[in-house]
């Protein structure tokens, strides 16, 4: 009695702990999701919110594919930044995978390609391989076998270079799948075994499961049932240990197919049912469709034709929704067979016709051939002998061409060789004849050749000279246009500068004339605006001058500006420039925006901080330029300043050149501004 009570206690404690733990995990995860959502919403445009969306996508991937895709889409709506280049590419690849799993192959290709070109630009080998694999998988689904193989072969050397064994094995596995699609079984078997060996070495259980199941599949096709069951059960065990749902489901399907071949229908149906459950939960439509076909085939074998029809129709529905002509071809065929047994011949023929159409689309000649055979049989049963004959001829014609393709190639080769040998004798005779003639011709020909070459040379030189002149004239014209344009620009600036200066002077004089006049503040604004305008003009002219494209020039101008603003206010300042900058160049947009952000920052430090010292630091690390402006003033409340124009302008300028900007301020303890500018 005591023992029973004790066990009961033990179990209830365990259950309680389990429930509590699980609830806590759920809660923790939900809190994590909530906090990520907050980050994402709050910092729109920021690196951290991009990362938040990416993480959210990753968390939802296994459970809610559609939500994950939505999160990932939010992430790639962000402007592309070098600072998170790798993660951006990973998001592209993840989205590609999700689209593939839901059967949207074109969208998947689009995203994988986007990821691929970005990854190539930034030399992210890992991600390049993932993109290649994803692209090839899509091509397999769309039955473009050569393209699929091409991309896999592109990925293989990279994976060998990276010494990533799991990746290598994956590629061999996929190459095996490609050979399988082409019915090249020995080749496929070799590749799968290669993959399995590498997976085992790399302790990659998930991959090993995949490879083993593929080997099992081939053994099944080759009718080695015991071996097939053996490999597949091994694969299932490993996949279950590893929780690889895709592999587990596939193992069940393969087991079903093996059992079917052994006529063990009950077990086969059982296995299929387990597979369906997996696929349906994860919205893996393509595999769901294939599995229903398998179930339909079993019911057909069991002569339960109504059930078989139902299953094939279900498969068709799904195949249609993912626009897979290959799947639809098989489904139509299955439905056709079912109607035939149900004695509705018109419907059967109609469905076989549909199957032929779709099969032709994906160049599956075997399926077409099967359909011809069955149609011929159906017409024969209906005593429509002319139609039956017609289709039988189509069937045998196709069968012959399929089986004799190889033979024909061999014959043609032999024929070509035979013709060749005959010709050789004739050629020898002619050669002797020719040798005699050649000697006399040769002399004449040399002179002729020389003349032709000389003539050609003259023409070529003439063309080159003509082109060169044309280019020189064009260049001269361009320069003239440039000169006139520059002159106009300068005259314009001169005029504008002088006039603005006058407006400035006159407004100041007017204020001096009557400082207490009611118009004083308007005049003050006129003066300020004209001053600002002259500043902007000068900045603009400086920015577009190509002589100013070195980083040193920009730094020199920044130093000048600092002196101009800070020295009159007796603010101590330190301007530190790391030597490693030398030689870097900045394009127009970068130097303009960098300088303007710097101006704003120093102006703020001078005007609003009421501090006594300012530290400016410029350095470079790798491909990035770092600027920091720090003052020891009174700081400000960040919540209040968000709406001010100054901060917003700085952020806009920074994002225009893909630079990141951040500001740290503590009321009473100063403000620091950081900016990182990518140099390429």
């Amino acid at each position, binding site marked *: 009695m005591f023992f029973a009570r004790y066990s009961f206690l033990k179990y209830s404690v365990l259950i309680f702990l389990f429930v509590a733990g699980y609830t806590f995990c759920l809660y923790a995860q939900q809190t994590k999701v909530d906090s990520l959502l907050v980050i994402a919403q709050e910092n729109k445009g920021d690196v951290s919110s991009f990362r938040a969306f990416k993480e959210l996508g990753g968390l939802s991937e296994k459970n809610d594919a559609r939500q994950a895709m939505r999160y990932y889409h939010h992430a790639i709506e962000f402007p592309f930044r070098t600072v998170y280049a790798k993660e951006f590419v990973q998001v592209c690849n993840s989205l590609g995978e999700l689209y593939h799993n839901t059967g949207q192959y074109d969208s998947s290709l689009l995203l994988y390609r986007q990821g691929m070109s970005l990854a190539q630009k930034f030399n992210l080998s890992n991600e390049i391989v993932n993109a290649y694999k994803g692209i090839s998988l899509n091509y397999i689904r769309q039955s473009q076998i050569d393209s699929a193989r091409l991309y896999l072969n592109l990925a293989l050397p990279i994976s060998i270079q990276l010494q990533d064994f799991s990746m290598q094995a994956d590629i061999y596995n996929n190459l095996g799948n490609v050979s399988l699609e082409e019915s090249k079984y020995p080749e496929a078997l070799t590749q799968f075994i290669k993959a399995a060996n590498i997976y085992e070495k790399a302790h990659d259980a998930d991959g090993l499961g995949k490879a083993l199941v593929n080997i099992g599949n081939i053994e099944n096709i080759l009718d080695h049932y015991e071996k097939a069951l053996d490999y597949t059960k091994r694969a299932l065990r490993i996949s279950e240990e590893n929780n690889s749902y895709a592999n587990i489901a596939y193992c069940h399907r393969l087991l079903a197919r093996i059992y079917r071949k052994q006529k063990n229908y009950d077990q086969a149906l059982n296995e299929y049912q387990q597979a369906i459950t997996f696929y349906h939960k994860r919205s893996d439509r393509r595999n769901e469709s294939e599995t229903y076909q398998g179930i339909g085939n079993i019911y057909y074998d069991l002569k339960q034709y109504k059930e078989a029809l139902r299953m094939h129709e279900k498969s068709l529905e799904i195949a249609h929704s993912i626009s897979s002509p290959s799947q639809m071809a098989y489904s139509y065929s299955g439905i056709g067979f079912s109607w035939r047994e149900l004695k509705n011949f018109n419907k059967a023929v109609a469905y076989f016709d549909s199957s032929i159409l779709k099969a032709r689309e994906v160049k599956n000649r075997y399926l077409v051939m099967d359909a011809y055979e069955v149609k011929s049989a159906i017409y024969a049963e209906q005593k429509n002998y002319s139609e039956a004959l017609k289709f039988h001829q189509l069937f045998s014609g196709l069968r012959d061409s399929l089986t004799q393709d190889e033979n024909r190639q061999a014959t043609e080769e032999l024929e070509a060789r035979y013709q060749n040998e005959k010709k050789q004798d004739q050629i020898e005779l002619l050669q002797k004849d020719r040798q005699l003639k050649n000697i006399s011709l040769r002399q004449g020909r040399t002179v002729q050749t020389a003349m032709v070459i000389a003539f050609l040379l003259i023409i070529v030189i003439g063309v080159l000279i003509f082109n060169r002149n044309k280019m020189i004239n064009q260049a001269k014209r361009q320069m003239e246009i440039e000169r006139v344009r520059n002159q106009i620009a300068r005259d314009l600036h001169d005029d504008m500068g*002088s006039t603005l200066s006058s407006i400035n002077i006159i407004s100041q004089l007017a204020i001096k004339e009557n400082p207490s006049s009611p118009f004083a503040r308007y005049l003050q604004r006129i003066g300020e605006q004209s001053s600002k305008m002259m500043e902007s003009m000068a900045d603009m002219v*400086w920015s577009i001058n190509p002589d100013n494209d070195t980083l040193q020039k920009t730094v020199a101008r920044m130093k000048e500006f600092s002196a101009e603003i800070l020295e009159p206010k007796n603010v101590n300042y330190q301007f530190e420039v790391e030597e490693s900058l030398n030689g870097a160049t900045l394009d127009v947009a970068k130097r303009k925006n960098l300088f303007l952000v710097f101006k704003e920052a120093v102006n703020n430090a001078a005007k609003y901080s009421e501090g006594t010292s300012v530290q400016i630091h410029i350095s470079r690390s790798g491909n990035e330029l770092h600027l920091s402006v720090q003052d020891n003033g009174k700081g400000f409340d960040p919540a209040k300043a968000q709406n001010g124009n100054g901060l917003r302008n700085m952020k806009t300028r920074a994002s225009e050149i893909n630079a990141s900007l951040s500001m740290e301020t503590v009321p009473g303890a100063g403000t620091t501004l950081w900016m990182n500018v990518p140099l390429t």
Partner: protein
Amino acid sequence: MATTIIVYEDNELLRESIGSMLAYNNQFEVSGSYDNVLKVNEQIKALQPDVILMDIDMPELNGIEAVTKIRSTGWDKPILMLTVFDDNQHVFDAICAGASGYLLKKHISTKLFDAIDELQSGGAPMSPSIARMVIGSMHQRPAQVNPYGLTARENDVLTSLSKGNSYKLIAAEFGLSIDTVRTHIKSIYEKLQVHSQTEAVAKALNEKLIRPTGFHIP
């Protein structure tokens, strides 16, 4: 005694504004204001100004040629050039021709009076862009190592200035006083002008425009 000034500026509005501004200050008196420099030497002889303000880019005869003409008479009082851009090659040429300094037009309303005062007390402000142009012009004469004859210290100051450092920072860098820095800059200016003048004379000699004896330029 008020400082007398002649203003040469072809933009009418600006010319008048400068005139009004100077009229406001008792220290200065505008004795003449013109929109061209065609008769500059006669006007100087007649009005005897203490300072000349001159726009660099004017039609017909431009500021640089005018400065050359003025200095060739031996008139040695301050000439302040007015310009919109300070990276203007013309500014450098004007200084080599003998201008005493320059002022950006955007700074007229705030710094005109200070600039004139500084010139009159012998100062000659130089900006980093001008410093860079001086250095640039030195490198264009590969035959001579030190074409302007600058001392080592003057070279240091010039180089530091060309990197954008203010006088204050230059002074701190070399442990000098700001006044010493100013003196060095003034010396650089003078050597620049002397060098240009000797160059002009040498060129004229080569082209046989003046006789080598009786060194008298009318």
